């Protein structure tokens, strides 16, 4: 009843060739087929952001994209962002500020925040607390109430811009 498709892609810098069901979502693919369980599944309908990852440099909802659509793409998950050191300062700020409790939203939250920080860097600006809140509003966190997350992202934005907090 289902169709299989061969895909070849790069995931966290590794070349991967797999046969996937056409209906399989990207997040199920990285979790179940590649064992990259840092990307989480919270709703499977594009609302919670727990599955946020990067495809060809842009953040996507891993539950709204099919693995088959990623043939030839570069996919980056939290494991890759961690190992490359790209978000090390953001992770450290989250840990210091207790900007995570259960941690289920955290990989998606970090990935979304990193996008904002990249945009801010390109504009050579520091996002306001309201802008931070706006940007992470596609990522649901039930535990923290968001305040600590905003603090952590704000501190990194300032540090990266060389602004004293």
């Amino acid at each position, binding site marked *: *009843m*289902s169709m299989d498709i061969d895909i070849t892609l790069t995931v966290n810098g590794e070349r991967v060739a797999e046969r996937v*069901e056409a209906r*399989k979502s990207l997040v199920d693919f990285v*979790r179940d087929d590649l064992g*990259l*369980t*840092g990307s*989480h*599944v*919270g*709703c*499977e*309908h594009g*609302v*919670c952001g*727990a599955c946020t990852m990067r495809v060809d440099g842009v953040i996507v909802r891993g539950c709204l994209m099919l693995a088959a659509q990623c043939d030839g793409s570069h996919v980056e998950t*939290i*494991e890759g962002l*961690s190992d490359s050191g790209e978000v090390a300062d953001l*992770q450290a*700020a*989250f*840990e*210091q*500020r*207790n900007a*995570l*409790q*259960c*941690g*289920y*939203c*955290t*990989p998606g939250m970090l990935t979304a925040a990193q996008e904002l920080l990249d945009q801010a860097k390109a504009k050579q600006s520091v996002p306001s*607390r*309201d802008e*931070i*809140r*706006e940007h*992470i*509003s*596609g*990522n*649901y*966190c*039930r*535990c*923290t*109430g*968001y*305040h*600590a997350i*905003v*603090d*952590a992202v*704000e*501190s990194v934005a*300032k540090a990266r811009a060389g602004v004293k*907090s």
Partner: protein
Amino acid sequence: MKITADSPPVLSVLDRPNSYIGRAVPRPNLQRLTQGRGQYISDVTLPRMAHVAYLRSPHAHARIVSISAEAAKKALGVVAVVTGAELAKVMTPWVGVLTHLKGIKSAPQSPIAVERACWQGEAVCAVVARTRAQAEDACELIDIAYEELPAVTNPETALDASTPVIHASLGDNLCFERKLDVGEVDKAFAGSHAVVEATFVTGRHTGVCTEPRAVVADWNEGEQRMTVYHATQAPHMMQNLFAKHLDLSESQVRVLTKDVGGSFGIKVHTYADEMATVALSKLLKRPVKFVADRIESFVTDIHARDHRIKGKIGVTKDGVITAFEIDDLTGIGPYSVYPRTSGIEANQVVNLTGGPYNCPNYRAQARVVFQNKNVMCQYRAVGHPIAVAVTEGLVELAAAKIGMDPLEIRRRNLFPDDGYPAQTASGLKLEQLSHHEALAHLDTMINYAALRAEQAALRKKGIYRGIGFASFIEVTNPSAAFYGVGGAKITSQDGATVKLDAQGAITIHSGVTEQGQGAEAVLAQCVASSFGVSMERVRVVTGDTDNTPYGGGTWASRAAGIGGEAAWQAGKALRGNVLAVAGAMLQAKPEDLDIRNGIVVDKITGAERLGLDELARVAYFRPDTLPPGFQAELMVTRHYVPRAWPFAFTNGIQASYLEVDTDTGFVKLLRHWCVEDCGTIINPQLVNEQIRGGVVQGIGAALFEQCLYDERGQMLNGNMADYLVPMAVEMPDIDCGHVVSPTADSELGAKGAGEAGTAGAPACIMNAINDALRPLGAQPLTDMPFTPGKILQALGKV
């Protein structure tokens, strides 16, 4: 911004050298989670593991006429299709009652419905397959014939003679009823200068944990042993229940929790589909995994807070509260949830209403009725948000009626700080609270006078801002009075086992569990402080019934106050044992020695005498060099349970500042404050984050969250697009303040902090909205959630 301690450390007698008590140290185990390398139950895979999907009743109430599964059984990857009747041979049903809730009744509930489905979403058939997708595909091939039965969906008429009875064996739809009449209520109302009545509605809502419920059950036929990887708050409770209903001994069941993606009371109950998954593993002799998807979470995760309360308050013209009266009606599901029951929430509403106030006259009635909707049970701050909404709503309405400032009326009625121990009209025993100090602290923190001035100035410009308050008390550190006395195998005590390893580092095993609140950090702080090592030398193990002391887990804000005390005591005891070894090695008196920063020192001079690594080396590998007859004991266990007080009540007050757009009905939250008193603060950062997260959960209930049902018992908004939860952009910054009144029941003096935020926030938001709209002559809003439509209605605009 403040990246480290956002509150100054609180010093106390617990401040040993190198003490971590009162310090905002980061949690030791976070990198795993920030790197996406945690292990949630949804991540667990085992060899030969199969996946189960449940076919769920589309009807709120229906007889299951037939189940045709031939095609499904032959489908690709399918291992088994199992009905309720088949599973009943493996697992016994349960009844959710407690003996201390007099008269509570419920009907036997099965892991999978047998003959009859009683709510939309109840599992009626299980399909086990090699993948979840294959299991779901096969579900599509199953044909179930239903005969729809009338659904009971209106609590107001649930007890009418003309309403069908859901469980004929029970005689009626009443699950539980409680009445209380203390003091002279009628006389007090008659002697009041003003009496205010209002009907409050708290919307049925649910936890929406980011990680849905998940369980992997692994029955090993060779070992005759069940291992359950379970996202639960209470592993030992679940061990007992799995064993009991599979007819096994508890030693045949091991429950492991690992990381849990949020729980908030959602993951502390018996869920039929989780019980079924465990039974399926036993039946099929292989690991079976179940992870609820979001849609099934909405119709099966417990709901909570579906209450309608008629409330009444009397006051004198001087603002003295003369009496409270409430009539609470709550519609639960078709079953009282096992084992904590669905009666506790209403019971708590009766216990807690009027709780902060020194008012001897109180009458209450609460009725809990069965409904053909998803089950209701305890969710973060059980009953508190409802009781606080009624109490604080009435207090502010009364203040408005007699023209008194809302903080002033509280000052005149809150239990005096020097009047403890005290007892509420409902009989709650209060050890030591600090309502007045908390209120004074809040008054300063929000700069109340200036805020009122700003509000008045903006009103002239047509901008309507409101300031609302909510005083509250919170139940924490429960003793056996909560569940144990009612016959449930839910332990209130907890234990900690601490051991010195062969390199002189510490491992602690604790019966409480980590749900993200920071329990493991608190345990590490306690044991590091009382033993005398740096936190880096402490490893914490929780969530494994094979390897931790018997304990209650995490609920009712007990992990820090109870689990922390056990850890503190265990660390102290191990220090004594280690110093005995050091004394023997150094030919010194143990009482002249101490352990500081991982080194045995001279207690008076602080001079370093012996490293723990060397001590451990000798004790483990060269015990022959120790004096004859001396035995080193380098692993100790201590347990703790509150005995002097049934509960360690905490208190606090919240304030909300918000703006209502009177054209659209939208509410913009500008700022939120909470001052609370959880006794000794072990980690101010963790306390504050519990408060903040809790406040936002309460705000969700006040403004957005509601499980909407139609009259046929169909949930109308069971997905995350239609059921609204708070997102970052709508939430305000939240400031926290503290007063510290330690409990004398433990050496640590810590009470719980996990639920205070959720307890007070909805009332606070309600009062702020009504404060904003009062000059416009709007009807007071008391029906949560306060959607733009309801606000416009109150303003008479729609």
